[in-house]
């Protein structure tokens, strides 16, 4: 079983938005980055499938040089090798561009299963995985909470809205987008970190002539839909004032 996991490097949860002067992208120099959380669950699922069925886990990422950091982290958690579509222009690329860059690099590898997170915590288009399936010409299923492999087929538990689920099965090769919480994440061990240093990361150039399908005209802080009463003061004082307002002003206590 040859499994690919597509991961993205995104700003950390604690990152405070700072924009470039033309307000069309973030100031990357001010951001620290980490592995996109849903992709971390996809990686974990791939490692578990390999432990059960044998084979190889290849971690794939498209982005500037900095993404090697998350590829290396995935290798430390147990992935076998890395594939990096290396281009500075991919930092702010839209989902379809990323899908084309990945498809170009992954096509010849003939993966049996491709896993990725259901969406990225940066641009959040929720398109890359599904578009990649189309470009690779393989079936896909999204928002997956369980994966079973048997006899050249994959049976997956797909999350529907409002607490509903559905089992869907299809032949491999197939692509699945993984929902956060499908499993419990493992972290890299010291041994894993040492081993990762010797693992291969192959860098490839993106295909020529990638054109964006969406351009960012501007980025801005969201406008408030409500006037928020911000309560100041120390904890005890703020708590007392909040309770007073909920009781007397909002009348909800």
């Amino acid at each position, binding site marked *: 079983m040859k499994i690919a996991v597509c991961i993205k490097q995104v700003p950390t*949860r*604690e*990152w*405070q*938005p700072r924009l470039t002067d033309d307000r069309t992208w*973030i100031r990357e120099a001010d951001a620290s980055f980490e592995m996109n959380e849903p992709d971390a669950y996809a990686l974990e699922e791939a490692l578990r499938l390999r432990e059960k069925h044998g084979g190889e886990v290849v971690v794939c990422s498209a982005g500037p040089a900095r993404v090697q950091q998350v590829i290396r982290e995935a290798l430390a958690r147990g992935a076998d090798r890395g594939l990096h579509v290396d281009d500075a222009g991919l930092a702010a690329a*839209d*989902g379809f561009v990323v899908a084309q860059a990945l498809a170009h690099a992954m096509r010849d590898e003939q993966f049996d299963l491709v896993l990725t997170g*259901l969406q990225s*915590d*940066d*641009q*959040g*288009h*929720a*398109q890359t995985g*599904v*578009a990649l399936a*189309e470009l690779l010409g393989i*079936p896909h299923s*999204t*928002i997956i909470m369980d994966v079973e492999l048997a006899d050249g087929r994959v049976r997956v538990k*797909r*999350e*529907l*809205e*409002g*607490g509903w*689920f559905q089992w*869907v*099965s299809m*032949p491999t090769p197939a692509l699945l987008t993984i*929902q*956060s*919480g499908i499993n419990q994440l493992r972290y890299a061990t010291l041994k894993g970190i040492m081993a990762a240093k010797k693992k291969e990361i192959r860098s490839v150039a993106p295909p020529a002539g990638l*054109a*964006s*399908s*969406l*351009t960012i*005209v*501007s*980025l*801005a*802080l*969201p406008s*408030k839909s*409500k006037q*928020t009463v*911000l*309560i100041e003061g120390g*904890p005890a004082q*703020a*708590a*007392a004032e*909040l*309770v007073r307002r*909920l*009781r007397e002003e909002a009348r*909800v206590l």
Partner: protein
Amino acid sequence: MILVVAEQRGGTLNRASWEAVTCAQQMAAGEPLGILVPGGGNAAQQLAEAGVGDVLALDDASLATYTPDAYVAAVAGVIAETTPRVVVMAHTYQARDYAPRLAARLRTPLVADVIGVKGTGAATTYLRPMFQGKLVAEVAPQGDGPAIVSCQIGAFRADKVVRGAAASVRTIGAAASAASPQTVEAPFQEARQAVDLGQAERIVAVGRGIKAQDQIVIAERLATAMGAEIAASRPICDNGWLPMDRQIGSSGQTVAPKVYVALGISGAIQHLVGMKGSRVIVAINKDADAPIFEVADYGVVGDLFEIVPAMTTEIEKQR
């Protein structure tokens, strides 16, 4: 023409399809709407009665049960034939499942999770959240093809649909039909929803900021003092710190209590869609830039581990 792709399951129209109609009406500068209903049925009839546009019921055996492959083939066929300026749908889990494949097949842009529309005609741009709702992006689709737009649930109001004279349904066959490689089993619910949070008048909800399972007790004490139900954002339930039937958001329950107290919840959109209809929203969070404050009526920026016990004491002493 703007083409709205409605969603139905077993003939029942997904309510969010009305929101897509509202979005399409807002961006239509006098041009007509077409409403496509894959699978047809009663849902098509309902839309026709509202008189919001020409209703096309797309009737094909491959569409009886949803699969992404059959939907992509059939809807791509209709788009190629009817050449709409824009295609609009609701950003449901089903749309998330097939719209990216549809856009990739047609080599056309997909603008997902749209919360607003600016301008008209070729100059139309769209507003959508990025970076977990910390920023809003104005984006412009590129190329000549019709952009596919999926509207965030709750961003456009179903009750703002402008109705007209009832129309009739035109049933069309699928020009392109694909046998799906997928076998689909019947939908099911994991466990009986033991708790119907939709009925709760007050809710205290916890998020990642609570940090550890043994800290949830401070939220539970506040809930008890307020006469509130306890609830949580997704990561808390994923960790097993509270049962799944306490989860609020797109994959959990949707609530609109009198008061919703969000403790250490940053306010990712998947959570906001489940609670932003609450009458009074209170947010306590250490991060002043957390998106939860955009929907909060009252906010305290600070340490919930200090503020929440103080609130509990304050409420208890005034009983």
